[in-house]
């Protein structure tokens, strides 16, 4: 009898201890779950906040200029008349030049890495290309300003100007004095910056091609070129386009490298050699000097346009890459 009493006296606190411990653990579990979920929600809130703050910040400018803001060429801090067209134009042109150069070269590098490169060199070369993506953009800027632009000014631009001076359309594309800095130089530096993205994404998607498809192509006697052209590229088209769009998104938003070499001229000129400006370069150059609400607000409105532009491009890129992943899975 006394035994039983003793036992229950010992056991009862043990049971409640255990229950308490279990409850504690369950609570800890719930807290941990809620904390991680809250963190995920915060990420959502941040993006919402970015959009909201840009919209609120750009309201004064949009109210002052209306939709004409998008097509106006004036940029005059003194009279407080602002328009986004030169910046949008410069952004699109420099990114366009960048893609024209970077897409074929990037695909070439990806082809080289998957088909031609000796196995031993594959990793080091792949890493070297990826390191190119890690170099901060301000480094591209300072290098572009002091090393690349003078080189272009002395050796490349005079040649382009005299080469195309008699060709109808191209003569206006390559017209004017060789400044060195300008939209062509900016586009070229952008091309070098986005090259690693195109190269490494294309390499990754090329590697998703089932070996049996390539073997079949080789089996019917295709050359490497024919295999790439008729088997690999069609199979990976969606992924390659996704990678290109991702690179385009980067090129559109790139700031420092472009700011150094674009020349900061608020006008739309047909010549690629002329100085221009981009949305991000305008913001970087003028934001801290902007006085007055309309000026600041116009710059924020430019930021909103840039964000929407890159958002659309990046969303398409992600959608395409996601489709490819689903296909591979």
């Amino acid at each position: 009898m006394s035994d039983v009493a003793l036992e229950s006296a010992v056991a009862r606190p043990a049971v409640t201890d255990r229950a308490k411990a279990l409850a504690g653990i369950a609570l800890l579990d719930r807290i941990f779950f809620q904390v991680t979920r809250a963190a995920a929600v915060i990420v959502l809130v941040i993006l919402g906040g970015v959009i909201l703050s840009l919209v609120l910040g750009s309201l004064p400018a949009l109210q002052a200029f209306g939709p004409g803001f998008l097509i106006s060429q004036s940029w005059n801090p003194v009279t407080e008349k602002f328009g986004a067209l030169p910046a949008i134009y410069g952004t699109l042109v420099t990114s366009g030049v960048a893609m024209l150069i970077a897409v074929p070269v990037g695909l070439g590098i990806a082809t080289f890495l998957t088909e031609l490169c000796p196995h031993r060199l594959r990793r080091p070369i792949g890493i070297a290309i990826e390191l190119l993506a890690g170099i901060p953009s301000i480094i591209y800027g300072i290098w572009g300003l002091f090393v690349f632009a003078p080189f272009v000014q002395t050796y490349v631009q005079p040649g382009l100007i005299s080469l195309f001076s008699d060709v109808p359309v191209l003569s206006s594309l390559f017209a004017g004095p060789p400044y060195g800095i300008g939209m062509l130089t900016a586009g070229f530096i952008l091309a070098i910056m986005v090259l690693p993205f195109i190269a490494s994404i294309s390499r990754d998607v090329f590697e998703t091609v089932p070996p049996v498809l390539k073997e079949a192509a080789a089996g019917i006697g295709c050359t490497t070129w024919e295999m790439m052209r008729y088997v690999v590229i069609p199979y990976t088209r969606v992924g390659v386009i996704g990678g290109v769009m991702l690179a385009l998104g980067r090129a559109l938003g790139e700031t420092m490298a472009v700011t150094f070499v674009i020349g900061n001229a608020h006008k739309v000129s047909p010549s690629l050699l002329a100085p221009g400006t981009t949305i991000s370069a305008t913001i970087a150059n003028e934001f801290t000097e902007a006085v007055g609400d309309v000026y600041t607000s116009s710059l924020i409105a430019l930021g909103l346009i840039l964000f929407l532009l890159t958002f659309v491009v990046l969303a398409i890129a992600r959608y395409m890459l996601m489709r490819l992943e689903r296909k591979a899975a």
Partner: protein
Amino acid sequence: MSLYATRRKRNSLATSLAWAAALFGIAWLFLILASLLYEGLRGLSLAVFTEMTPPPGSKGGLLNAIAGSLVMTAIGVAIGTPLGMLAGTYMAEYGRYTKLAMVVRFINDILLSAPSIVIGLFVYEVLVHPMGHFSGVSGAVALSLLVIPVVLRTTEDMLLLVPGSMREAAAALGAPRSHVVAHVAYRAAKAGLVTGVLLAVARVSGETAPLLFTALNNQFWSSDLLAPMASLPVVIFQFALSPYKDWQQLAWTGALLITAAVLALSITARALSAGRRKS
């Protein structure tokens, strides 16, 4: 010419173009590194690390800029890493197939490549404008917003690599869910998680645009986080665009320092994750 010869010719043309493309790509890496070494090493001296940024025409170093960069990067990483890691944990461990996770994944991918200058504008609107002045804190917050997507992405990817059977084994022993995550999944993915943080540090240590109008710049030593703060990238930006030769020299030296740091970080991160893949 026979069809066969044409095809062979076209093929050798295409393959030599691919070789040329690879050479072209690597050439830029070496060209940029060579000019950085050539221009930057000339200005490298002890004074760079012990003296403040000078007014034009006199001697000086980059001490306040280096310190400012370190402080803001450290705070930015300290804010961004836990947030990114917890969100990444939710995505990989709890909400793998939920709507929330899918939306966050998409949004995070957008943030990952969103123009950093837009992040700067955002922080200006939310912090700098209400406070009324530029400050080191807002610079750090801007950097933390760039850290989050990198850490979130690598955390999720690395946790997904941890085999589910390890989690099941721990759960079968009676380990609660949070313990499974903390003691099994985190431990198994440790190298990958560190890689993510290193990549994030590498990403933000060269960022200029978001600092331009959050932390601005400071010619003097500043330990006050509520005052404008100097940082290496912004000093490089300002000095490189100036007409003074000695400022431009300091800009090159600063550029060399940043690049060396960033490349060292990304090579370390790569080595870590490569070691993991082998084991």
